[in-house]
């Protein structure tokens, strides 16, 4: 007589959780995206190509991706500095500043858009002095850029912050005892340790800025070819009942975003492999 020994994993619930995960991801993400692609098949290849390469579309995509990239770069630098100040120093109001970082997460984007527009309008608190310098922010691409910085900053701060907190202060002491000055310690020891987190923060801020709609359209002015972002162009096409046009632009954005995120992900993997979590 033999007794069968069931092979059981010590972690329970694999079937249930995996099933739910797949179902949920399909319903929420994969099926809508598939529908998006299907819709574009209503167009012939030529039609698709002419929509995608039309001047207005190309400019909208250029504005969306270009400004998002620039905003993410700015957020990467300023976000890192903010994290440094919040983590390394104890100053009055630190907790308040820490909480303020989350506001762009929580604020309805339309509210942010209106607020920024008021602030940077020609008679606004910041818009007026800037106008005197001959810099026009509201209703120009600079406005879009600022809105994208606004909504992206918490992504960098919140991804890098826990990693910097966990960074062993002994690493810096070791660097100092080996004769390194502050510059060497920061650029050769601390920042390289933060690279995976910095890349993640950058990717999230970048992705968020590409998809941002609410706060941007208020401040952008929305001039075709000048300050019209791709998501807005999609909405315009939808309101004109040109659904296939809208989805064609959407597909281009989707593929481009996917490629960028994929690339950043690979970079991050590469960095992570060099700095494994112990």
């Amino acid at each position: 007589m033999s007794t069968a020994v069931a092979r059981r994993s010590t972690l329970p619930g694999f079937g249930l959780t995996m099933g739910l995960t797949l179902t949920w991801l399909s319903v929420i993400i994969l099926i809508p995206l598939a529908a998006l692609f299907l819709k574009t098949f209503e167009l012939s290849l030529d039609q698709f190509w002419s929509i995608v390469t039309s001047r207005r579309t190309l400019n909208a995509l250029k504005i969306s991706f270009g400004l998002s990239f620039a905003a993410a770069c700015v957020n990467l630098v300023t976000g890192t500095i903010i994290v440094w100040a919040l983590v390394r120093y104890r100053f009055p109001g630190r907790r308040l500043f820490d909480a303020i970082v989350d506001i762009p997460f929580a604020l309805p984007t339309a509210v942010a858009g209106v607020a920024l527009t008021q602030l940077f309008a020609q008679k606004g608190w910041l818009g007026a002095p800037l106008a005197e310098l001959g810099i026009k922010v509201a209703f120009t691409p600079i406005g879009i850029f600022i809105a994208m910085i606004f909504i992206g900053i918490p992504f960098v701060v919140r991804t890098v912050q826990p990693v910097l907190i966990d960074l062993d202060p002994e690493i810096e002491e070791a660097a100092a005892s080996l004769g390194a000055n502050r510059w060497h310690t920061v650029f050769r020891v601390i920042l390289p340790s933060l690279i995976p987190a910095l890349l993640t923060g950058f990717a999230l801020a970048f992705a968020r800025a590409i998809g941002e709609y609410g706060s941007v359209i208020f401040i952008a002015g929305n001039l075709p070819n000048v300050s019209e972002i791709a998501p807005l162009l999609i909405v315009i096409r939808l309101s004109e009942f040109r659904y296939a046009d809208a989805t064609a632009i959407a597909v281009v954005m989707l593929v481009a975003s996917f490629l960028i995120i994929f690339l950043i992900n690979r970079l991050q993997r590469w960095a992570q492999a060099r700095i494994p979590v112990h």
Partner: protein
Amino acid sequence: MAIEVKNIVKRFGSFAALDNVDLKVADGELLALLGPSGSGKTTLLRIIAGLDWPDAGEVAIDGENALSRGASERQVGFVFQHYALFRHMTVFENVAFGLRVQPRAIRKDEATIRARVKNLLDLVQLDWLANRYPSQLSGGQRQRIALARALAIEPRILLLDEPFGALDAKVRKELRQWLRSLHNEIHVTSIFVTHDQEEALEVANRVVVMDKGKIEQIGSPGEVYDNPATAFVHGFIGESIVLPVDVAGDAVRLDGRPLNIPALGAASGAAKLFVRRHDMAVGPAGTGALEGAIRHVRSFGPIQRAEVALAGSEGKTVIEIDAPRDRELQAGEIVSLQPRRYRIFAAQG
């Protein structure tokens, strides 16, 4: 290089981590700072390295005031308990770090740096790991790399903070002997901090025993073991039997009964009798200073360890003694105990 520490005071809030500490370390010494946690030994080491600053006092390295310089200017090698290796650099780059961050004026060329790193990796016998990352190394290997990295800058002195504390017992033993022989080879003045008395006695030329921010005794391993200067040192180093006694003139009494041993000049009043476990001679009943019933015997190696309930204490005072195995002791046997060597220290407080 010689190190001189004078009247160092360091407080953390109201807690005195170091309370007027003086210490002289001669050139080429291998010194152990030994003490329980909170004794101030790590704080003292960090102050010498420039990683902490004293509230008062002086530190001189090779006759030069060290406190006027920061950690990065002192040319002091420091090895951390948890290695503190740079995770994003290979073993090779970790060791090379100190050479690469030197001011441009004195920085060596790439070939010299490579040769020097290679030499150091050979010295710690890990040249085959040059291209690995720290996370791929065992604890013992990481600590040897940390040591090689500290030696790369040709430190004037080498400081090690609980260098073997995070390692398992077997690796720790190997590394101890290895550190000893390494020191014999390179002779750099070294101080290591430990709470492990065995480690201190086995590795160091000289041992500094610390407690509560003060130095209790400085001496060779033999001196601190055989002639402990204070009750703390006697209790901390080696296994001791401690009995509360009263001293009156030259008479010593335990629980009011006289013990037939001289007081060795201890002051009259409440005191503590310290005897090493193996310094308690066992004899037939009625022949020694103390008497008791053996409760339990365990034999291993060359000794037998017996638990003895002392007579006259209603069996409450139980001591452990180590006896040679020339005569097997039996549980239940009544024996006498005679301290061969002992110390009496006045009870504190």
